[in-house]
């Protein structure tokens, strides 16, 4: 802290002087109309506090965007009075990748590859929300084969488990429960192994496509998913046993990050945060899609409105997801996994060969040496794609974080005119101020962890 006794009159001047003298421009002090402002970026508190002694102290801490406890590149701007947070604001945008704009220059099918990368912990939900919207605009919702819908449900529910596990794991990590973190990420691998087996990729799979899914389950897929469920159930119970009645965990989470029903409604909060206030709102029940009306499961609610309630909801929802997966596997019958309309259905199915994943040999045989028309059809559909009638639709799914909505506008072309995602993390993150102001700085970590924001989805 070499700049303690240097006084500048503005931040610009401080920077200018620093450029000439080689001092740290971001660790000086300067006068403003509201008094002298000290900027500190590390170092020892004792070296700054004597200088600021006797002045009105108003400490603003920038937590993040590079901070291990902020759940990604989230920047929390906290105004402190001692260790009490008097004002909290969230700064976002550090992971904005322009996915919505990019999609306007790619075909409708290629959109899947973009949306799967938004909230990278819930790829199946992003893809399904997008595909449901495109299918609604195409007016083919009723034509989606049952097997495709069931596979979507299986993948989504497994994805819900993996997303909740990461929420628990990172939340545990941030609160110092490292075993929970190790358990969470270990169990998540079981789910990702299934994803890898079915789609070829652990994440970013672009598996759900407009009209169905990219490929059928592998021959032993059903068996392997069935084998994983008991193991997952046992291990999930271990994680629950570790934390549910753990007094340290409860001490950090009970009563922390309080947000009641009125607050949730005003701020548009959905998902576990809303259900922790006691409202059993779940789109799988209220507006069933992909055949969710055929499954028996409970909507988990708690009435504590706090971080602990949200944690319990996630724990119990994973069990419900396993129930749904089991029922879905029982309902699985052989059949097509892509819509019958050849003008929309992706012409090829993927398969694994000695050289990796690619189009199935039968399809290559068909287009390369048997049917010129098939080749033309394949070429047109893959390069040009299908057209979607002009208009706009909105489709929503219940993602692990809340309502994931997809607003699609088509101008009748082969590419989306505009796609907008109402990502639950984006909206839920607005509640940081309501949850954290007046609490201790350590509770901010617990509250943000209970929101479970994923910045890839927040910033898109």
């Amino acid at each position, binding site marked *: 802290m070499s700049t303690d006794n240097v006084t500048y009159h503005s931040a610009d001047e401080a920077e200018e002087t620093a450029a000439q003298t080689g001092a740290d421009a971001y660790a000086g002090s300067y006068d403003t109309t509201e008094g002298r402002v000290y900027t500190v970026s590390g170092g020892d508190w004792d070296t700054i506090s004597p200088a600021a002694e006797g002045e009105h102290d108003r400490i603003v801490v920038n937590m993040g965007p590079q901070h291990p406890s902020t759940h990604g590149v989230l920047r929390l701007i906290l105004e402190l009075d001692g260790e009490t947070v008097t004002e909290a604001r969230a700064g976002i945008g550090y992971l904005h990748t322009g996915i919505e704009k990019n999609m306007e220059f790619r075909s409708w099918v290629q959109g899947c590859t973009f949306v799967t990368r938004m909230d990278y912990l819930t790829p199946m939900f992003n893809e399904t929300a997008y595909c449901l919207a495109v299918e609604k605009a195409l007016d083919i919702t009723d034509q989606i084969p049952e097997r495709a819908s069931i596979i979507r449900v299986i993948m989504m529910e497994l994805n819900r488990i993996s997303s909740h596990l990461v929420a628990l794991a990172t939340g545990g990590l941030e609160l110092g429960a490292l075993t929970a973190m190790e358990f969470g990420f270990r169990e998540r691998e079981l789910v990702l192994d299934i994803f890898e087996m079915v789609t070829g990729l652990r994440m970013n799979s672009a598996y759900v496509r407009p009209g169905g899914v990219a490929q059928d389950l592998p021959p032993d897929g059903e068996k392997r998913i069935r084998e994983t469920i008991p193991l997952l159930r046992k291990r999930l119970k271990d994680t629950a046993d570790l934390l549910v009645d753990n007094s340290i965990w409860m001490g950090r989470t009970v009563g922390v990050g309080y947000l009641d029903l009125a607050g949730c409604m005003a701020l*548009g909060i959905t998902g576990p945060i809303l259900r922790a206030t006691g409202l059993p709102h779940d789109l799988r029940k209220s507006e069933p899609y992909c055949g969710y009306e055929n499954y028996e499961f409970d909507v988990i609610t708690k009435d504590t409105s706090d971080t602990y309630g949200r944690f319990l909801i996630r724990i119990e929802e994973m069990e419900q997801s396993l129930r749904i997966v089991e029922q879905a596997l029982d309902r699985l019958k052989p059949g097509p996994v892509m819509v019958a309309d050849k003008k929309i259905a992706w012409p090829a199915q993927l398969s694994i060969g000695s050289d990796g994943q690619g189009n199935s040999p039968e399809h290559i045989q068909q287009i390369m040496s048997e049917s010129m028309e098939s080749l033309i059809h394949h070429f047109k559909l893959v390069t040009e794609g299908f057209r979607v009638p002009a208009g*706009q639709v909105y489709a929503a799914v219940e993602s692990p974080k809340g309502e994931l909505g997809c607003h699609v506008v088509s101008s009748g072309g082969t590419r989306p005119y505009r796609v907008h995602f109402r990502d639950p993390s984006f909206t839920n993150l607005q509640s940081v101020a309501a949850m954290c102001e007046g609490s201790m700085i350590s509770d901010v970590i617990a509250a943000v962890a209970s929101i479970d924001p994923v910045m890839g989805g927040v910033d898109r």
Partner: protein
Amino acid sequence: MTDAPVPAVPEGVRELDIIGVRHGAFGASGSGDTSGFGGLVEPIVLPAPATRPFGGWFDEVTDEIELSLQARNLPADSAIEKVVIWRDEITYHVRREHLLAFVTALRDEPGLRFELCLGVDGVHYPHETGRELHAVYQFQSITHNRRVRVEVSVPDDDARIPSIVAVYPTCDWHERETWDFFGIVFDGHPALTRIMMPDDWPGHPQRKDYPLGGIPVEFKGATTPPPDQRRSYN
């Protein structure tokens, strides 16, 4: 747009929502087109306004909205420009000066009770002269399990819409995002600043007229043009 052939007008429809005209099929012009598809001229028409009866609960909700607007001394047809129903979804096109009264009715009327606003996003229609920028709001009623959409259109040179943050606080970040990406000013927003782009970013990236960069990769003297100038199917 004037040279576009007028398509057959559906019965009961007074005006068509034409947002552009599509020429050809392959996005190329000037190359020796021998297929004849290059001569295609096709207007891009958005779904036409719906007329009563709308069917289902759409009539019930619309009646309720009209009554509550009248109770606020506001004739319904001065607030609602048109109603579009497409794919079982209802969209109310609302004039911006009456947006606040409209959404307040949506939230407060017992027969409507759209407790949850799912935010707002923008759509840019550069060819719709006088109403280039649209703001689209989604509302959900958990009580009645219904959804409606509200759309507000404003001209590009006067892109101002009253903020609904006072009625639905959830729109805070959504309106900031729409300002950031489309340049729509939400009057009355508590702090309308950029949210995704850096504070000093020039322009509004998701508008259709926003200049795109392209990739400075050269292939034997030729460069790859920006995505909006590349040849593409249209």
